[in-house]
């Protein structure tokens, strides 16, 4: 694949992360890194801990052990609104859109962080902000064009078909102009055509905006096509890490997917 932006230094370093829920060990001692401008796939069988990993990165879950270093800053725990102000945006495995709002409004919320920082203060005082609002609106319109969803701009997202909802969710994440974009199964439940569109959007985002992407996906074909490097999780442990081809040939990965017992 020809790239306009070559893969750079480490953007996110995950170090020895362990996370458990009561008796369930969702992640144990997982380490890997994500480099600038790359598309990094995270794969593994159901319940392997992939979503948990994303939730740890964006601050929904707080690991019992381990460190995360993003843009050179190491943290133990951080809340989601803090990670998003650092430049991490995401989509969810089970679509989490604002169902009552239109497509446009959903994507606009993605720009809230870019508008005003301190909500508490804003509660007390607000200046004329029309011009700012217009700039944000223009940015959102560009995203809508990019994702080819002009026709559903005003439709409440609760009424949209599943595939389009996923697209709107991607749009909302893009609106924040993230440096790291976390996508949890962006193509689950889509038909072939929708998948192709989504693949194209992901590649374009990566290529045009240079956005670094971490992607969870079950469809191996998609993973092979899109990703630069792949992490494989199984039962909360990392069992392989490398190029798509190397990972595909790895015996441990094959066993994990075939359900061979350890």
């Amino acid at each position, binding site marked *: 694949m020809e790239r306009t932006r070559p893969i750079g230094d480490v953007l996110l370093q995950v170090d020895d992360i362990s996370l458990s829920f009561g008796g369930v060990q969702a992640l144990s001692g997982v380490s890997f890194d994500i480099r600038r401008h790359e598309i990094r796939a995270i794969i593994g069988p159901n319940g392997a801990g992939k979503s948990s990993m994303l939730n740890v990165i964006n601050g929904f879950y707080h690991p019992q052990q381990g460190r995360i270093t993003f843009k050179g800053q190491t943290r133990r725990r951080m809340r989601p*609104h803090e990670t998003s102000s650092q430049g991490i945006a995401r989509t969810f495995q089970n679509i989490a859109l604002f*169902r*009552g709002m239109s497509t446009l*409004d959903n994507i606009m919320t993605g720009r809230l*962080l870019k508008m*005003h920082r301190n909500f508490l*203060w*804003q509660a007390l*005082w607000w200046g004329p902000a029309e011009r700012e609002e217009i700039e944000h609106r223009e940015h959102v319109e560009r995203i809508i064009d990019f994702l080819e969803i002009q026709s559903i701009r005003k439709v409440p997202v609760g009424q949209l078909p599943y595939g389009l909802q996923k697209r709107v969710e991607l749009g909302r994440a893009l609106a924040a102009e993230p440096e790291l974009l976390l996508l949890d199964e962006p193509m689950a439940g889509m038909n072939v055509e929708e998948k192709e569109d989504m693949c194209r959007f992901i590649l374009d985002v990566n290529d045009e905006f240079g956005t670094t992407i971490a992607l969870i996906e079950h469809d191996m074909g998609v993973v092979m096509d899109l990703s630069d490097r792949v992490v494989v999780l199984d039962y909360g442990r990392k069992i392989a890490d490398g190029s798509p081809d190397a990972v595909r040939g790895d015996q441990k990965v094959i066993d994990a997917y075939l359900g061979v017992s350890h």
Partner: protein
Amino acid sequence: MGPFIEVVLGGLLAGVLYSLVALGFVLIFKASGVFNFAQGAMVLFAALSLVRLMGDDVGMGHYVGAAAATGLAAGFLVLMGWRRARPQTPMPAQARWTVLIALAALGSALAALHGAKGWSGWVAVPAAAAIMGFLAVAIERLVLRPLVNQEPIILFMSTIGIAFFIDGFAQTIWGSEIYTLDLGIPKDPMFLLESAFEGGILVNQLDIFAAVMAGVLVVVLAVFFQKTRIGRALRAVADDHQAAQSVGIPLNQIWIIVWTVAGFVALAAGIVWGSKLGVQFSIAQVALKALPVLILGGLTSVPGAIIGGLMIGTGEKLAEVYLSPFIGGGIENWFAYVLALFVLLFRPQGLFGERIIERI
């Protein structure tokens, strides 16, 4: 014609109070999807704090404590102002603590100097507002934050707990008798439109005051939620906590804001109710009257809350006056609920609520 208008007007003015309480419900429901059972208790707490600070038979500690809380609240405002004015040079943590502690100390010192005497309304109202702010912070910290991402029903149940707690707590620290609240709001009845009708229309000045206050409150809230980015953030939070967090909305700040505003609305309702009928435990029960208002107006609509309250107030009075000769008195007690049931049959989302269409 004159008597009819008098009944309608009396109903509208009585309805203002229902509207105020319902408004508190709507605000919290919109922002957090929580049906706040404690709104009535908050009205009681606000009114009790106010009336007791204005009276002179609580202990010195009460005055000093309330003054410290007010000083702290002022401190927070100062810090936020600083942050806004100089976003590039954040105040060091130690300086922040100094500001907070200094203002709290200043407040307590002033209260101590003033002695165990009642405060004027000009001081007591802001103090009661500050107390409602801290109540909001406490609720966010102790109840809402640990329950982030839980089902709405769980949050609802927790507000039942909050309601019982506030009821008891308010009466423990402030006392549980009936107190008369006198903020100097005129209470005398007066006649309107004497030229148009024979004998004019009899209204109470307090009711007029309440109506004006409710109107101002609604306008302020509308501007607050429409013209600030908070409006959008609020809707986002109400729709989906996780998604809201992921786009960078700090849930806890939003919740503190909303519960504080609901606390202010509770204070306004407490002032009206307390001036009219005295501050007493039964204030908390007014929340029950807000339920039919909410069903009528829809849980998510601010104008709905206002109009719903007015409709119920008017309906009650009209029914009482014109129907009781046929079906007996006491209609006021049940009319609201029957009206609400009737509305439920035809428009489950209320007259003004958003219709939610689920894809299955």
